[in-house]
């Protein structure tokens, strides 16, 4: 840059600005959000597991929590976040290897369709026992 010109600054808002954008950008935004959620979840996970330090009583409490409705619903949401992030990640591995960058849009929808199918099945597995 020549002298006297204003120097631009990093603009992170662009990461979450899908106005006027297309599938690739929405996939990117979705991956940032689910990534941050998973990062937050790691801490929740460790905090919850820390009750095991309280010995057998803690273990019993943990199992009771884990089979409660709020926890099961949390698990269902967690599966959704994991599937979206993970399967989109698989898409990015292929696209990043140069395989099908032309089809990145179709790959995204394929990944999301797979995510939806697996999500439906796991939701059934998680919630069905609780219905009975």
């Amino acid at each position, binding site marked *: *840059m*020549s002298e006297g*010109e*204003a*120097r*631009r*600054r*990093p*603009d*992170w*808002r*662009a*990461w979450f*600005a899908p*106005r*006027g*954008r*297309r599938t*690739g*950008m929405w*996939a*990117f935004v979705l991956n940032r959000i689910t990534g941050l959620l998973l990062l937050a979840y790691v801490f929740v996970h460790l905090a919850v597991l820390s009750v095991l330090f309280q010995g057998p009583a803690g273990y019993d409490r943990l199992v009771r929590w884990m089979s409660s409705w709020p926890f099961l619903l949390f698990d269902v949401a967690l599966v959704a976040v994991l599937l979206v992030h993970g399967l989109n990640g698989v898409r*990015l591995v292929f*696209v*990043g*290897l*140069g395989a099908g*960058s*032309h089809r*990145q*849009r179709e790959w995204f929808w394929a990944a999301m369709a797979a995510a939806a199918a697996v999500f439906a099945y796991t939701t059934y597995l998680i919630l069905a026992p609780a219905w009975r």
Partner: protein
Amino acid sequence: MAEVELTVRVLRGPARASAAGGRYETYTLRADAGWSLLDVLEALQAGPAPDLMYRHSCHHASCGTCALRVDGRERLACLTTVGQIAAGRLGERTGHGKDYRLPRGARAAVTLEPLRSFPVLGDLAADFAEFFGKLDAVEADLVAARGEEATHFEHCITCGACMSACPIVASDLEYLGPAPLALALRGLQDPTKTGSDARRLAAADQPHGVWRCHHVFECTAACPAGVDPGQALMELRARLVRRRLGWREGARR
């Protein structure tokens, strides 16, 4: 052609580090559906906004100076028509030569902003100095070879649309960006062997080079010239990986 009552919101302001920080001015004018956005800007300059700043030269998608954001999308002003805006067809490369069958007394509104991730010289005029510096870093100046089969990578008119569309260019100031990396690949493929391949490879194979891309592919979607910089980036990556593994042309460094 039908006349359209066009309301134009223009992000205006003096020279500054980025498009942010300007203010929106609204103008209303009657525009022919066949007008390009450059015609609209000229009409504004001849009327209510004589000091309006914007860039243009060729009027036919060759010089790459007129790119700006139209309702948040990077577009060449010379390729975008009033009819296209009124019909809501900004996804199409151009509105020229098309009849959108607009009703009588059609109205439309559009927001014009300078390219993102470029310093602004004033109003809609982006400052290309930084971008051109990145093109120089990959020795983007090419010489056409006789009899050479054309690829789409040399169609780049260095309009900056892809740079504006890329969220990573926005957050990483050093990131070379889609067009320079596409032209780095094109340079490596160049049969005339113009320029330094070592320099191109060094520019591409560093943290702010090809590895910074996060596969958003807005560059390819935004490109008015069909260059497909996203694919170029992926090809360049594959080439660099092969080179690291020593798979081709005795490439160990």
